[in-house]
């Protein structure tokens, strides 16, 4: 059973194993499992493939990769095909970052702690809010945590409002958490593709509302006008949480400028590859008075015994390893390495680069919007400002359109729940590519 089959990750020679067994005082490694009822020791052959060599593994995944259709992406809906600077993977693959655990031993984790502190600072600067945590799993789970945080900031209230214009997967995840946590979720109606303030005000009448989660840019790509939202909520002792795409905050009115109390969102738009949906990075920021209600890890500045500036995990009394069932959340791992990815991205792009990304994306999107309408195959739906994403009403069969575009090498015109099709353009798409997409649609 235990002869060494020369596996590169197991350093034990047969002699080593014998030396160790002698020290322990047993005859075989199986004896170390004598406390396990014999019927539970798996005696069969595992139904797995034969061990592969590295080259075989490469060939195997290469062949699988070829079985996926590679398409030019013109869809967003929460995952955006922005450009990734070459520097980022070079940094994030440094094994001192990659192979470290959570920075519990701060004396040998200053690298991780410092970039998280930078991440927190940059999230604060983008959102305009005071405090950020060290990251969440993704945007939708960050919104679900925001739901619980809104409840945690209110006393004895159990209703959270969600805008019907939030991205569908965000609504779905929040509702999942709400169902089991026992939270009453009420949807704020959409009117003309935007969150209805009248609907919000009507829902506030119950007196049970802890807060609302509303998008800054919504599922139709529309930039929402949240005038009066914060006031309406605050008047009922409820809080405003905004769901945002952080890339757009370089140019759009910030959560703080809308007087929001909490901001959450998906950090993927900050240079993280599409990667079939992960690993992404959620973020969460709030006003300082709610700092101790934040879930997840937080890094703070400290000084060491010699008076040098250093960084530590702080406010840990909120967390599961101390508070157990009374913690602000069960979250333990965050998405640290993706937070590093985003931090390096923001460092490289700077304020100018991030504005330029928005300018180019937005110009491409408006150009595509106009060209699509010219084809006569679509009708406009909403008359509202948008940035890089928009919906149109198709006058052709949606499925046939999508299939046709697939064959031409495009992923575009994603069908929405309300019968529209959604398009998105980032700075990665050239004018020539946009023209090619439009030409393909004209052909239909």
């Amino acid at each position, binding site marked *: 059973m235990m002869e060494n*089959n020369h596996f590169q*990750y*197991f350093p*034990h020679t047969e002699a*080593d194993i014998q030396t*160790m067994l002698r*020290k322990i005082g047993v005859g075989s490694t199986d004896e170390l499992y004598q406390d396990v*009822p014999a019927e539970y020791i*798996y005696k069969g052959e595992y*139904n797995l493939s034969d061990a592969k060599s590295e080259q075989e*593994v490469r060939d195997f*995944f290469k062949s699988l*990769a070829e079985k996926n259709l590679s398409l030019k992406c013109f869809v967003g809906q929460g*995952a955006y095909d922005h*450009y990734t600077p070459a520097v980022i993977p070079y*940094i994030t*693959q440094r*094994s*001192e*970052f*990659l*192979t*470290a655990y959570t920075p519990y031993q701060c*004396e040998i984790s*200053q690298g991780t702690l410092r*970039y998280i502190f930078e991440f*927190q600072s940059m999230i604060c600067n*983008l959102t305009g809010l005071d405090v950020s945590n060290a*990251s969440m*799993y993704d945007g939708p*789970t960050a919104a679900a945590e925001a739901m*619980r945080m809104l409840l945690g900031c209110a006393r004895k209230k159990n209703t959270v409002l969600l805008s019907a214009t939030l991205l569908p997967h965000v609504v779905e995840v929040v509702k999942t958490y709400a169902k*089991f946590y026992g939270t009453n979720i009420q949807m704020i109606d959409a009117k003309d593709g935007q969150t209805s303030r009248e609907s919000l005000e009507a829902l506030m009448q119950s007196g049970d509302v802890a807060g609302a989660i509303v998008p800054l840019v919504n599922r139709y790509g529309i930039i929402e006008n949240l005038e009066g939202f914060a006031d309406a909520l605050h008047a009922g002792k409820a809080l405003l949480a905004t769901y945002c795409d952080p890339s757009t905050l370089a140019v759009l009115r910030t959560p703080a400028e809308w007087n929001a109390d909490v901001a959450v969102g998906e950090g993927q738009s900050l240079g993280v590859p599409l*990667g*079939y*949906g*992960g*690993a992404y990075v959620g973020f969460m920021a709030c006003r300082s008075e709610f700092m101790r209600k934040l879930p997840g890890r937080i*890094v*703070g500045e400290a*000084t060491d015994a010699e008076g040098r500036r250093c960084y*530590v995990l702080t*406010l840990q009394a909120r967390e*599961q390893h101390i508070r*157990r069932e009374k913690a602000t*959340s069960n*979250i*333990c*791992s*965050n*998405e640290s390495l*993706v937070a590093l990815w985003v931090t390096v991205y923001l460092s*490289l792009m*700077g304020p100018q680069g991030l504005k*330029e990304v928005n*300018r*180019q994306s937005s110009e491409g999107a408006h*150009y595509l919007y106009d060209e699509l309408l010219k084809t006569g195959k679509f009708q406009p739906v909403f008359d509202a400002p948008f*940035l890089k994403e928009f919906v149109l009403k198709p006058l052709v069969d949606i499925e046939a359109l999508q299939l046709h575009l*697939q064959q031409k090498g495009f992923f575009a015109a994603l069908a929405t729940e309300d019968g529209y099709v959604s398009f998105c353009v980032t700075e990665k798409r050239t004018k020539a590519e946009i023209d090619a997409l439009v030409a393909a649609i004209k052909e239909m």
Partner: protein
Amino acid sequence: MKYYDKLILELSKPGRTGYSLRQNDSCTTDALASLPEWGKRKTDVCLPEVSEVDVVRHYTNLSQMNFGVDTGFYPLGSCTMKYNPKINEEIAAMPEFQSIHPLQDKNTLEGIRAIFDEMDHALAAITGMSHFTFLPCAGAHGELTGLMIMRSYHMSRGDLKRTKVIVPDSAHGTNPASAAVCGLEIVEVKSGENGLVDVESLRPLLDDTVAGIMMTNPNTLGLFEREIKQIAELVHEAGGLLYYDGANMNPLLGVVRPGDMGFDIMHLNLHKTFSTPHGGGGPGSGPVGVCEKLVPFLGVRVSGYNGNFPVILRAYTYILMLGRQHIKQAGRLATLNANYIKESLRDAYKLPIDSVCKHEFVFDGLKEREGENHDELPTTLDVAKRLLDYGFHAPTIYFPLLFHQSLMIEPTETESLETLDDFIRVMHLIADEAHTQPELLRTAPHNCPISRPDETTAARNPKLRYE
């Protein structure tokens, strides 16, 4: 490792840039200018203005203040810090996978579908469960998902009064926290003298309000819950389900399948048992597996898209490398390594429960010598900090909560006899220092980028961002 004292925001100089975007090819006139005034950002975007070389040097300097598995031995209990194979990274970074949008039609993604299917089969074969969901992004997220499945099952049967979950006092802190997020009431079951769940304490807790029990086996003391068969029978008889916290799966990898022990639901930490890197605290992946009757409840939507796909790719690569030939060694060698350290250090450190361990074990601080008082010896924190001076990562400290000076050691199977012997030598050295020069430990570390920070002041006056 050396101290480096800069933040990227401090390197900023107006006008400097580090990005590369095309400069022509404009489609229309400035679209941003036509944004409505009410929708525009009014305040400056305070981000660093730095060159590419500034960024590379800054983060390289930061990395040099960090300790990873590639730096050295990382015996962090319950965290399974095994070596992270480099082929995993190569596969996860394949551009063919990185460029796919999560909402692209699955019919066009035969290769990706195959990866998820085969990974599902492989994990089912390894664990004895029926099928897995890959949406959970971490272990705690898996726990929450698993408990949601547990509740969904009871709810689907109209059995609405099952709102309690039993959690042993030795459980990972995430267990009760996940249960609370899932809207469950936590009932704690005490461990017996032998560190195992006490069946007689469990029995009276079981009634028709219990949704299930969460267990990790081996438990956080590294001890196998020998009564698992009886526990499973009792919980099932009472109509409850058994949840397996897969954080401690490593010693069972290739040896025991949780499904065979009667567990109905479990999560795996791909970033522990399946060799994917921890990345300084994520991204992880916590797939949840269930027995056949719970498969209909597997579709619970707990994250945005398809889970942490690159982590799944890495773990699948590892499983392919391991194959059916090597898997049977993995858990056994992890257990061998842990027992070897335990037996080699028990003369110097206090072993509260003398029993064969699995992948990890717990000391209750230093062992007092004649005439010494245990309470006056340097603490577990001091021992941990001193280890850093000798180039090792510290074990997990002050967990589990069952002992005052818990020092939890988990070596994993990827460490050689020479590495273990070196660690054992240093742990003996530290024990000697503790008795002869205790101040050396109490002021440790002495050779790290920083010395001990003042965490109390940091928590009293939190400074959480650069201003």
